[in-house]
């Protein structure tokens, strides 16, 4: 079922168009990646979803209902530019932010205790925010974002400022939230985390969607039919003799003296494999799909050149 549906949304500012008839369908219970170069319109779209700004035209549906005030309590938003009141105590501040989302004080206290224990930050309750390090503040920020158990979570660069251990903790928390039923919109430049976490993505450039779909499908669409084969054979020349009969092949020595890596660009590697099996031992064969990083660069550059 579609959780969030963005229909033909356009937003213009004085000197540029931030979003140009943007359409996105975000299914329920998935992690959806929102990608794009700086200034592409991601933040504008996120702000529209949070009703911080309104679109000039087009509409947003949540659970097939028009986006309205009541949805605010059902969305959790971790902005890219985030911070806390420096002079306020951690616990007091977390309760205040939870209350603003419509949680009763006692309930907020209970849930916060649970999350603070989970993130091992229980001892900070009475500390002032300014006494904490950036990473510590980020953890508190994350907890306050999810404290009202929203159906929809929007994370803008959630991993910035986290060390690898805490980033992992965060990743697990995000996956757990998805498994519990939340729909998550993730905007990031960290392509590794997109591959790890996202089910589907939309790539935005200059306010337009230039690529949309499931991560797996997109990768397959951008398949260059690259196949990597490693064979073990004492006589390198025998391998070369086979390879020389193909022109779409690249041969490299590996660190191990008796192993050779061949990279073939072809949809049918069977013939080559058959020949190689005769001269040596097959160590590995794999289909090399392009990384999201490569796809991102390729798509954005080709669109920019076309423009």
């Amino acid at each position, binding site marked *: 079922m579609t959780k969030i549906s963005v229909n033909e949304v356009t937003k213009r500012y004085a000197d540029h168009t931030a979003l140009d008839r943007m359409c996105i369908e975000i299914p329920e219970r998935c992690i959806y990646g929102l990608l794009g170069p700086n200034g592409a319109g991601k933040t504008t779209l996120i702000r529209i979803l949070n009703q911080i700004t309104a679109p000039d035209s087009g509409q947003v549906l949540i659970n097939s209902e028009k986006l309205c005030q009541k949805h605010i309590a059902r969305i959790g938003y971790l*902005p890219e*530019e985030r*911070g806390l*009141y420096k002079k306020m105590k951690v616990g007091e501040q977390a309760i205040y932010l939870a209350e*603003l989302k419509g949680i009763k004080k006692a309930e907020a206290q209970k849930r916060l205790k649970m999350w603070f224990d989970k993130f091992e930050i229980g001892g900070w309750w009475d500390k002032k925010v300014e006494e904490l390090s950036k990473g510590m503040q980020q953890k508190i920020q994350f907890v306050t974002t999810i404290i009202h158990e929203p159906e929809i979570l929007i994370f803008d660069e959630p991993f910035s400022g986290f060390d690898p251990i805490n980033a992992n903790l965060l990743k697990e928390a995000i996956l757990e939230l998805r498994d519990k039923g939340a729909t998550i919109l993730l905007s990031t430049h960290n392509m590794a985390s997109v591959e790890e976490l996202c089910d589907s993505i939309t790539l935005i450039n200059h306010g337009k969607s230039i690529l949309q779909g499931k991560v797996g499908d997109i990768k397959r669409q951008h398949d260059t039919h690259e196949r990597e084969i490693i064979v073990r054979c004492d006589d390198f020349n025998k391998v070369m003799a086979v390879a020389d009969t193909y022109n779409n092949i690249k041969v490299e020595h590996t660190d191990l003296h008796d192993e050779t890596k061949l990279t073939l660009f072809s949809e049918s590697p069977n013939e080559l494999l058959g020949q190689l099996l005769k001269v040596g031992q097959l160590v590995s064969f794999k289909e090399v799909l392009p990384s999201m990083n490569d796809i991102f660069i390729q798509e954005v550059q080709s669109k920019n050149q076309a423009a």
Partner: protein
Amino acid sequence: MNKIGLIIKREYLTRVRKRSFLILTFLGPILMAAIYIIPIMLALNSSTDHLRVAIVDESHWFEDRFTNNEDHTFILMPGQPIDSVKDMVKNGVFDMALYVPPTQLNIPSNAVVYSIRQVPMEVETYISGVMQKEIEDQKLMAKGVDPEIVSAVKTDVNLQVMRMDENGNEKETFTKVQFSLGMILAMLIYFFIMIFGGQVMQGVIEEKTNRIIEVIISSVKPFQLMMGKVIGVSLVALTQFVMWILLTGVLYVGFSAYIGLSNPEMLSQGTVMAQEITSNDIMSNETVQNIVQIAHSIDFGTIITTFLIFFILGYLLYATLYAAVGSLVDNNTDSQQFTLPITVPLIVAIISSFYIVNNPDSSLSVWLSMIPFTSPISMMVRIPFGVPIWQIVVSVVLLAVTFVLMTWIAAKIYRTGILMYGKKLTYKEIFKWLKYK
């Protein structure tokens, strides 16, 4: 929605808990009480020091003119050379010595007071006053005028000013009292708008530089946040105001009780002396009568009601503008450029109040008390002098309408401004924001 209530609560509590708020709250009344207490303390203390003044009067004009009291005794040393008397001052026989050389009427007299320590102001004025009076009398006699006649013809004109209304009712007015009352009220509004409007701006800038703003406005509307802050700070202002009045009262009562318990005689003495300082030569009976009359002539009901209305509306109008300005800047140092349009009308109002207080019913004064940006201050200057009710109503309505309009504009600017970082803004650009959806 109770979200705005939550915001008001936070804004209020974080400010009231601050150390600077507590310090200001307690320091204010102490300063105010000091204005009342210090003259009494001085009056009480000066009587404890008794001074002995030796007089060497070679003119022999003033010898019997100085009278003794609790503060000072005058001892005549006729025929003694001044040098030996000076030695006696050095040895501590006398506290000071007054030397009057032989004097002629047409020569300005140049008497000298010799003293080891600082001569109290009071003694100095007493001595010079006595001498001046004596010389004037001597001069009058030399011209053949009896000084008795001169003092007999001295007259105080007591000019009564009566204001009439259309129905022919007459009311006595006291310009001096109205003058100071008007200025005090105007100053109060001016300072409260400046200080607490500034606090609203600081709060907005803080949220922007902390980058918490986007987190908050994903939960509440920017308008709710802005108004919550404006109202929260206004409650802080009112708290401070009420605390000042209460604490001043407590300090006053406490001090009176302290003086009264420790020495009942001194209290009456102290208050009498304090009265002498404040009210010049008027007989105390007349003073009391006067005070009753003045109090009767002032319409406290109108003053308090209008003060509260103009204070609240004026503050709200300016506070929302301060909020809009706060949203336009990234840090305090940049705020100058945009605060100017706000502070100019305030400054115009406070400067023109010196004119208004002298011409409360001139057409310029009336206009200034109608224009919404100056009216909170200008109208308060005029109120003690009596303002036709229709003018007050028109002014309040104009102010209220402007407040609503300005809040609408400020909210539009605020909404866009809080999310702008590191961009040099021009007024033209800000104007465009008003059209954003």
